[in-house]
């Protein structure tokens, strides 16, 4: 145990007690996993052609962008924050990289890096406002949502950017697996999830993230530089949103200033469905991956069944409420 015997509440980090597997799986992923299996079982019997490698590859491809955004969102929520600007920041990043590559003739790789860097800057700015001026993350990112949205539309002149070089869309290409085709983008998303799962479970950075989210003051008193750490979390999340921007360009083949309008809330939905606590400090990135897949499976399944689109939104809403309800009941029982 690393907690001190000062006035810090006892809810402080107890991560050293956890087994490796428990930390890796986050403990709270059983529920989401079951929900995903139920959804797959349900749609397999209800929709023709649903249970196939092809559908699996398709769902994976469709959740690539939102999955990557939700990964960054998970980091921020684990730190007991929230980011309402993810979709807008991603949109700005994708406009920056496509416009630089198409209009300014910058080498595609540099354009991509510039786009990702811009998203990182947004993360840095969010982080500084949260840690230095101590503004609530909700307010900071609400403001940043509007800033990024406006910059996107000003910089793009409201026009879709076409003729994007192939380097920017390479991640949208697919390779065959059996009779299905998997996109490189979905592969990258899975790799990112795996990498962050390992980082959160096995590094000081990861452990501090949980500790800070669990009990900011307690962690600070143990001598962890919590503000600098929080700052780095926002920066890393921003860079992840930059990768999502690249994936969005790869997916649509254009720089589209209109993207990202629904992703802010969708990313939070995925995190919640994945069993990560909105109060910080508890949850896991693999849960978020399951959360994203649940939404993707439900959406594709209902569409393949021919259910009217409005019901997809209804079902997603009910799932979120159920997820939070189970989470609350589970926590109450184990207190």
């Amino acid at each position, binding site marked *: 145990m690393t907690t001190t015997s000062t006035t810090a509440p006892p809810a402080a980090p107890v991560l050293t007690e956890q087994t490796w597997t428990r930390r890796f799986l986050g403990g709270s992923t059983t529920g989401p996993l079951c929900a995903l*299996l139920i959804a797959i079982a349900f749609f397999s019997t209800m929709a023709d052609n649903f249970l196939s490698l092809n559908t699996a590859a398709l769902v994976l491809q*469709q959740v690539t962008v939102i999955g990557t955004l939700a990964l960054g969102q998970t980091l921020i929520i684990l730190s007991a924050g929230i980011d309402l600007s993810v979709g807008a920041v991603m949109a700005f990043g994708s406009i920056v990289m496509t416009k630089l590559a198409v209009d300014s003739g910058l080498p595609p790789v540099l354009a991509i890096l510039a786009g990702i860097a811009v998203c990182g800057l947004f993360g840095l700015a969010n982080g500084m406002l949260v840690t230095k001026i101590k503004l609530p993350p909700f307010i900071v990112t609400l403001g940043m949502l509007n800033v990024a949205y406006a910059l996107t539309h000003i910089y793009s002149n409201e*026009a879709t950017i076409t003729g994007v070089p192939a380097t920017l869309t390479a991640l949208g290409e697919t390779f065959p697996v059996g009779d299905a085709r998997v996109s490189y983008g979905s592969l990258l998303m899975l790799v990112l999830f795996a990498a962050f799962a390992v980082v959160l479970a096995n590094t000081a950075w990861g452990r501090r993230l949980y500790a800070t989210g669990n009990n900011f003051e307690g962690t600070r008193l143990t001598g962890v530089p919590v503000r600098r750490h929080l700052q780095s979390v926002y920066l890393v999340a921003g860079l992840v949103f930059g990768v999502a921007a690249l994936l969005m360009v790869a*997916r649509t083949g254009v720089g589209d200033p*209109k993207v990202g309008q629904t992703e802010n809330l969708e990313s939070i939905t995925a995190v919640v469905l994945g069993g990560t606590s909105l109060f910080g400090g508890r949850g896991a990135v693999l849960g978020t991956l399951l959360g994203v897949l649940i939404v993707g499976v439900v959406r594709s399944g209902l569409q393949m069944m021919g259910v009217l689109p409005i019901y997809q939104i209804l079902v997603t809403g009910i799932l979120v409420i159920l997820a939070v309800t189970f989470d609350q009941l589970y926590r109450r029982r184990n207190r």
Partner: protein
Amino acid sequence: MPKTRGWSRLTRTITVLIVISLAGLVTSGCGSGSDDRIKIGLITKTETNPIFIEMKDTALIAAEEAGAQLLTATGEFDGDNEGQVSAMENMIAAGVKAILITPSDTKAIVPSVKRAQKLGIAVISLDTPTEPADATDGLYGTDNFRAGEVVGEYAKAKLDGKPAKIATMDLAPGVTVGQLRHDGFLKGFGIKEGDEQLVCEEYTQGDQTKATTAMENCLQAHPDINLVYTINEPAGLGAHTALKAAGRTDKTTLVAIDGGCPGVEATAQGKFDTTAMQFPVKMAELGMDAALEYARTGDRPSGYTDTGVELITDDPVEGLDSKDTDWGAKQCWGG
């Protein structure tokens, strides 16, 4: 680690497994099995716009009559290209023979259209053409330039040579439909962009509240505006609100486009001098006919089919065909 936690996880897992198997039993009991009906997909821009609701309802009826299954989907907002791309992928996976689509992003959807066609699926656009228009197997829709032109001609006759001070309540920069209607209006009125009679041009996003604000601003700068063109009926109603507050309704001619039931009613009440009606039911009927024909015989539709425009007014002008609001109330959509 508290013992209860492991125990509860086990029971939860068991409970969930029981639920899964029950769900499987129930659904297989329904005997849905595989569905041999022809499948057709319909993808519109949004869930809420009455014109798309009318199309969906029409297509559902046509599918039922033909013994076919209709899969429907929409984007999450007007301009949501990614949502439409995902919907197309899901419909292809579900095995549709033809897809009817109202493209949100006329350029960015084209690669997905090509992909579907390569798999032997006919893609037909409704209401809005793709860019290039021949990317899809046929288009059934309003000639938007013509719709603008007829209200322009009406306004010209109505003003009867009096000097005009014109405000245009437009859609949004870079959106084809809005541009075509605007240009058509100018042509019908017999002026060109930059004419001194055009005193105020504002973007409204086709939104009632935004149109009120825009019209207020126009009246602030030019209190003597006597002709208002509005891109659609919500914008028309918004502009009317501002004109009424300024006491200008009697001295102003207001023309709108769409033919929704609230718009026809506003015309009957004298809020609009005229509205140009378009025919979404016809678009959906003709589109479904073509889709079913392709599914049965393999005959691909092609080219543009104009579904027509009809001027609705209770104050007809000489030399221009029009129908009164009683006729309009019977033909209108979204009522």
